Structures are given as structure tokens and as C-alpha cells.
């Protein structure tokens, strides 16, 4: 599994993104195996978040191709990718201010909604049944990410670590097959990071393929099956955690010391 023997959940081939003169991502190719956890690491500004944004469809590619479960998605608009099984979180806290945790989860599960038209407006029997099912689903997921009992809490009253967990819960609410996490541990203390490790492993256990960007090497080394290392938008190394942490190029460009 770790070597990508099964068909990949996500494949990038020759992907580039230029912002004016900046080559934020430069001829990048890698794949995320089915039910694999792939780490994406590298110095600040090496193109990690841009890679996530390209996969999610925030902006178009300059060159290259992206496949999700064998389907080319680079021409599909951003909002039409979550229904194909793709979900992501943002590096900076990104939630709906003024919403409760539960409401946040319900919008996160938007693509699961069938009743979106007149039925929803007039609260038809089907719409009410669906809303009840979605609320149940969201409540279960909140407990799963460690926010049990927080459904009615306004987002502003959650701690920053809880907001991070809610972002993950909200992404999971769409029932993705591929989940992209951009620095999920930002602003977390050691104990919270350890709980996050367990959560990421539990997400994998649910059959989701995960790509995670992080600066905390202990977390990356613990959860990842494989790691891709970026520098100046280019892939400089790829392999198992052990191989990557002893790679002189990686130590030179990013790690500084061997972890």
C-alpha cells in the first residue's frame, strides 16, 4: 500500500503554477495511494499550499494534469470537485463566522444534500427527514473529531485548536475519499498534536486517503506512509519517513538536522 501498488487516489503529472514570474509549483509529479497518508513538507514558500489549491481547483494550472481516482479534474470548477470525493482544509483558520459548530458541519456536508430546492424551502417531509439525518451525521462526526457536545457552540467560543478540529470535521462531512490537510496542527500544543495524530490515523482507518502538510516533524514522521519534499516548487525527495529524514538534500534544504 505504502509503495502505491494499488491504484492511486490522486495523481499529479507535470503540474506547474506560475504567479507572474514566481514559479510557485514547478513541474510537480506525485501520487497519493488509496488509503495512504502522504506527507507534503518543505520550507515556507516552497509551494505546498499552492499545490493544495491546485488540486482543489481554487485557480487553474499553468501546466500539467491532475487525476482524482482516474478521472481528469483540472477542467472541473472548484465547487464541482467535492461531489467527486475531494475535501480540503485551509492553512489559516477558515470557518463561517457567526455559525455554530453544527451549522458549520451542515454546510461542510452540503454535497451530501439531496433536497436543495422547493422541498427545502417549504420543509417538505423529505427535506425534514434529510435534515434530521444530516444533523445526526454531523453530530456523530463532531464526536469523532473530538468535539462531542460542541454542536450548539458558536465558532467564536471554540479554542483555536477546536476550530482546527472543526475544519477537519467540516471537510469530513462531505464524506470525501481524498482529504487534503494544510497545516492542521498550527497553533496546537503538544498534547493537542498527539490527539491530532490519532485523529488522522483514525480518518485513514475509515478508508480515506490523506495528504497532510505539516511543519511538526514528529507528527509527520508518525502518521505518514510516504513523504514528498518540496523546495522552490520542485520535488527534491520522495519516500518513506526513514528514507526522507536521512536524505542529505532534505536535511540541507529543510530539516537542518536529522529528525
Amino acid at each position, binding site marked *: 500500500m505504502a509503495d502505491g501498488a494499488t491504484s492511486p487516489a490522486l495523481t499529479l503529472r507535470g503540474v506547474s503554477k506560475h504567479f507572474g514570474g514566481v514559479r510557485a509549483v514547478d513541474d510537480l509529479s506525485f501520487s497519493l495511494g488509496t488509503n495512504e497518508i502522504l506527507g507534503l513538507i518543505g520550507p515556507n514558500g516552497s509551494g505546498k499550499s499552492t499545490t493544495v489549491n491546485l488540486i482543489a481547483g481554487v485557480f487553474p494550472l499553468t501546466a500539467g494534469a491532475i487525476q482524482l481516482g482516474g478521472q481528469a479534474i483540472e477542467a472541473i470548477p472548484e*465547487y464541482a470537485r467535492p461531489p467527486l470525493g475531494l475535501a480540503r482544509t485551509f492553512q489559516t483558520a477558515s470557518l463561517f463566522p457567526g455559525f455554530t459548530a453544527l451549522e458549520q458541519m451542515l454546510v461542510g456536508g*452540503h454535497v451530501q444534500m439531496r433536497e436543495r430546492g422547493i422541498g427545502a424551502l417549504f420543509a417538505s417531509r423529505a427535506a425534514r427527514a434529510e435534515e434530521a439525518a444530516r444533523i445526526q451525521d454531523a453530530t456523530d462526526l463532531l464526536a469523532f473529531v473530538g468535539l462531542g457536545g460542541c454542536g450548539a457552540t458558536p465558532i467564536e467560543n471554540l479554542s483555536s485548536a477546536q476550530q482546527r478540529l472543526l475544519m477537519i470535521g467540516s471537510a469530513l462531512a462531505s464524506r470525501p475519499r481524498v482529504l487534503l490537510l494544510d497545516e492542521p496542527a498550527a497553533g496546537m500544543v503538544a498534547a493537542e498534536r498527539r490527539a491530532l495524530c490519532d485523529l488522522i490515523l483514525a480518518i485513514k482507518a475509515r478508508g480515506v486517503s490523506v495528504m497532510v502538510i505539516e511543519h511538526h516533524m514528529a507528527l509527520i514522521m508518525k502518521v505518514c506512509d510516504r513523504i514528498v519534499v518540496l523546495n522552490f516548487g520542485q520535488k527534491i525527495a520522495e519516500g518513506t519517513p526513514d528514507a526522507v529524514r536521512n536524505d542529505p538534500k532534505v536535511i540541507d534544504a529543510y530539516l537542518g538536522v536529522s529528525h
Partner: protein
Amino acid sequence: MKRALVPLAVLALLALAIAAPQYITVRYYVQLILLAMIWTIMAHGQNIIQGMTGYVSITQAGLMGVGAYASTLLSIRLGWPVWASMAIAPFITALFSVFVGYPSLRVKGHYFAIVTLAFNMVIFIVLMNFTSLTRGEAGIFNIQRPEPLFGLVDFDDRVAYYYLVLTVAVVMTALTWLLMRSSIGRTLRAIRQNENLASACGVAVWKYKLFAFVASAFYAGAAGALYAHYIGFINPETFGVAQSLDAILAVILGGTGTLFGPVLGAFAVVFLPEYLRIAESFRLIVYGLLLVVATILMPRGALPLLGRAWHAAARRLGFPK
């Protein structure tokens, strides 16, 4: 306790509105309340796009004009029954809004406000200059009231028309309430709060924005038809940009994104100018000042402020919370 009081307050308000024409002997005040209820419908529509979705549209009065002229022309030029003309007008208005909303809402950013402003200007210019159809600045006179209902209710009677407007205003308020509490309303609020995240959650943002704008146009069209067949005379002056700014003001003054804020705001923009007559020539300046002061003193509108005042009063009087 407070939540439980809301339906009671609504019922009391409704009872007041029903009783008003029976007790208010000065016909002028009945007329003002009637116009304020038409403005309530306008403001509800404006609130859907501006308040719930977070996109300021500057053409609500222009769209009201589309509804007013559509209903008038259908009934006068084509000889349609007034009822049918009035019923179809909101749909014609909604159709118009699609042509403006579709191109301007597909792109992110602030084009929407500017495009809608331009649209209002175009509507005004067309109404002014397409004289063979609209009679331009001179306007159209002798617009009929709806035909008697079952040969019983005669709408030439101002009070009967008052109850027609009240009925439509209540129905539109109820529709807005349904929208707010539905999953569609939640999705619109999500777009207002974080459009990029909504998109990442798989929300086809532009479709929801277009829906909100078309809904706002539908409300404006209904208000326009009610207005035309009440006053009996329309000319382009009523449907200019200044009146669209009033609709924006009504939403902001009352309470952006709330259900009853726009009702409050609509009454404010109808009644305040009547009491500020002396300031007629300084209208825009007075309104500008009012807007600035209101935004500073009550950033979330009058409704939340009233709620707090009620709480304070209740505490003082020793009511349980």
C-alpha cells in the same frame, strides 16, 4: 422566555395592522402605512441579496419599476385582467434580473454592485425615452385597481386595497421566514460569511447568488405591481437610483439579515421623509448623515437594539428572563 415572546409580538403586530384602518380616521396615515407595507415587500427582497447573501444590489427600485410598468402595460395595452397582470409582473421582473445577475454574479468581486447600479440607470433611461410604450416623463395615468373579488370586495375602496397589500406583505414575510430557516438560507449565510470556504465545501456559489438576486427581483416586482395599481399613476421618477438607495437604507437601518429588521426599516424610510419635509432639498445629505450615525450607533440595525432595550426594560420591571 424571549423566544417564546416572538410569536406573540408578531401576532400583536398583525392585529395592529389589521385594526389600523378601522381606527385611524386620517386617510393620509392609512395611505402611509399601506405604502410602508409595499416598501416592506421591497425591503424583504433587498434583504435576501444584501442582508442574507452579502451582495449589495443597487437596483431594487429599478426592478420595482419593471414590475410596475409590466403590470400596467399588460392591463392597459393588452387589456389583461388586472389580477392576471399583477400576478405575472413579479415573474417578468425575476426574468429581467436573470439577464443582469447571470453575467455579473459569475465573477467574484465587487462588479455586482456596479452592474446593478448601471442596470437601474438603464431602466430609468429606457422608461424615460421609450415614450411610445411608457409615455416617458409624463407617465401613465388611470391605472385601474383590480377587479372586484367575487363581486363583493371593491378594491376602489382604499381600505379593501389596504387589506390586499397586507395579505401580500404577510405572505412575502412568511416566505422570507421559510427561506431563512431552510438549508438554502443557511447556504446563503455561509456565502456571506466566507465565500471561498463555501466554494470549497462544494457550494455552487454563483447559482445561490443568482437565486438570491432573482428572489429579490421577484419581491420588487410584486411591490411594483401593488404600487402602480394603488396610486393609479406611474412615471420613471419613482424608480430611480435614489429609491434603490432607500431600499439599502431600509435594510441597514432595520437590521441586516434579520426577518423583521426590513419591516422596521421600510416604515422608517416611508415615514421619516414625511416628518423631514423641510429637509426635502437636503434629502440625500440628511439620509447620508442618518446612515453614518445609524451605522455608528447601531451597527447591526435597530432590531437588535430594540431587543436589548426590551431586555433591559424587562430586567428593570422584574420580569423573569
